[in-house]
């Protein structure tokens, strides 16, 4: 992703700004301000800020980091937006990030990681974390199709992308919890889903943020090879959590990945290599 020509002229973006919407932002703040950067969690398609409110927000704050989660437009408690594009989702993330008191760490899950990758080209995050990232393209689609043909195929024709409970959660997750979470799933806008497959690659990140990629080799949405590919794009190797499902933040063992993320941040990763 390095060495690409920086695009300063953004006539279309300026001429056609993204429409504002009411956005849901949930937050849990540490009792004592300890000078740690805020984390902004970005849910994947179909999920809302609620997915992080379950465990990760509280845990992050308990470890001294201000924790925020946004619901992309059309998701969770944010305003409906049936015509949303990937650009509008990235805009939502950048708007919330720039509204935080200090330079934020962006954490994206699933297709939310792709939204974060786009947002990184428009906001110099302090660092970025891609959790079980779905970075798009037909390979993603192929993998999803093999594992869940009935849930995936309709998405191609504009229907909803349905992920099954067994794809999202490991067997260790209590069934009642899995059902409860699955019942809250919504869907992304049709155009955004289509762009997930066919859209252009994100522009290079600004400000050279360090990027961490993590996921589970047993994820039934994102194959291990996709994790390796995603990490390589940012010049590193993925951190792996065997035995967990795609929704790491809702899994029975949700604590391990978030602790790994915060440990990584405490070590204060330096900025990425100069492009």
């Amino acid at each position, binding site marked *: 992703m390095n060495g690409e020509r920086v695009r*300063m*002229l953004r*006539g279309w973006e*300026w001429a056609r700004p993204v429409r*504002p919407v009411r956005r849901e932002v949930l937050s849990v703040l540490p009792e004592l301000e300890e000078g740690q950067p805020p984390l902004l969690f970005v849910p994947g398609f179909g999920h809302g800020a609620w997915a992080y409110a379950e465990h990760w927000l509280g845990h992050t704050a308990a470890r001294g980091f201000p924790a925020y989660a946004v619901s992309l437009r059309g998701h969770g408690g944010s305003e409906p937006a049936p015509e949303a594009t990937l650009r509008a989702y990235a805009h939502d993330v950048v708007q919330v990030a720039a509204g935080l008191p200090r330079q934020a760490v962006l954490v994206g899950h699933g297709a939310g990681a792709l939204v974060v990758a786009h947002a990184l080209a428009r906001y110099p995050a302090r660092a970025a974390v891609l959790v079980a990232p779905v970075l798009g393209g037909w390979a993603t689609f192929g993998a999803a199709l093999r594992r869940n043909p009935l849930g995936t195929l309709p998405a191609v024709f504009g229907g909803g992308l349905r992920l099954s409970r067994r794809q999202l959660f490991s067997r260790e997750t209590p069934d009642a919890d899995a059902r409860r979470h699955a019942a809250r799933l919504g869907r992304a806008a049709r155009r955004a889903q289509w762009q997930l497959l066919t859209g252009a690659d994100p522009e290079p990140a*600004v400000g050279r943020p360090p990027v961490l990629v993590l996921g589970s080799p047993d994820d039934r949405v994102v194959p291990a090879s996709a994790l390796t590919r995603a990490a390589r794009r940012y010049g590193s190797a993925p951190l792996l959590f065997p035995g967990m499902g795609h929704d790491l933040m809702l899994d029975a063992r949700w604590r391990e990945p978030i602790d790994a993320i915060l440990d990584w941040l405490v070590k204060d990763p330096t900025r990425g290599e100069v492009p």
Partner: protein
Amino acid sequence: MPTPTEHGRPDPETTALAHSRDGRPVSDRGDTICVIGAGASGLTAIKNLVEHGFGVDCYERETGVGGAWNWRHDRSPVYASTHLISSRPFTQFPDFPMPDDWPDYPHHSQLLSYFERYADHFDLRRHIWFGTEVVRVEPVADDRWDVTTRSTGGYGPERTSRYAAVLIANGHNWSPKLPRYEGLEQFRGEVMHASSYKDPAQLRGKRVLVVGAGNTGCDIAVEAAQQASRCWHSTRRGYWYAPKYVLGRPADQVNDTLLALRVPLRLRQWLYHRTLRLTVGDLTRFGLPKPDHRVYETHPIANSQLVYHVGHGAITPVPDVARFESHSVELADGRRIDPELVVFATGYLPRFEFLEAKVLGDDEGVGRPRLWLNAFVPEHPTLAVAGLLQPDSGLFPLVHWQAVLFARLLRLRATRPERAAAFAARVRSGAGERYSGPVKDSTRHWFEVGHADYLRALERALHDLEGAK
């Protein structure tokens, strides 16, 4: 000693003590870069230099950030009613958008809060020495710079520090340009430059003459139309008074749709003339002089209300001022008017009083630097000026990219000196280049740039500097 800063910035560590040419002690700041001014341009310079790994000391003569947009600053040119003329997407920094629920054309107080948030978000204040004025900048050996500062207002001793590079971001809209007129000394009415106009109460109930139809003159004429007992608006040429909205959208957004479609200038001018003709109409019907140029050949005016108030008879358009008498003003067409207050909205001139004029290539001392990309200085590869632009659009994205380019250049000086040398050659050969279509000859157009042309040139410069990978 400089007054302590808001965030208690510590004294710069003196790494080594050197001496200036005349024997004064100089604290050597090593690889640190000096930024002059913490207005919008200075702030984005600090942010981008720090982001590229540089240490930065910024000196700011005021006690807060925001420069012109902090209207408490004694040199701020903004007045109570100032709203942006460039709409939000063109005005915000490219990596730190304004809130999307703000209006298309935010108020100056919103701009200030935006710059304050930018400073806090990126933790920039710890690099800034507030209340500290730069009084001298001198080149020394090895392309380094001695920067002498003292407390604003001249209290306390001077102090000199040596820097690896200097970025000047002192703004160019604060030093009034005041035309000379025959008889002005005898005039018994009140006279002021727009820079000291703050509040419509200053106009209330008076017979007011406003001179100049830049955006400032037009705004003040509109306020006088509503507050003063009489308003004459004197211009030395006709202009295109473009509304802030056309076809229901901010005018600059419509224009950039055409730019994005790469519609050539002549066709854009024609379309614009047509659109103005259909919406605003024939200006001479209102008694306004016919423009002596095509649209985009003077710095654009964005004002939907001026023509409207002319239509109400609340503004009387008049020609240039010929001379002043004790109680009246004679106009170029021989008419006499009797204003009590004259507001010169005749613009501003750049000023670099801390630098020898030659350094910026202003050999005749007329005040006009000769630079490449309006920023880079021939023969001085470690000196640049940020924000010395008058764009047909928002300024801040342009300055952001200037700062990025300067940061990358300074980095390559260390790692790839041959690249930096090629850049320096380009600066020499390209100094004085223009980045706009033809414009009328006036000091106000010294720094006029078309934002698309200018950004394209910057993009190319960055690309050439870093080379294809």
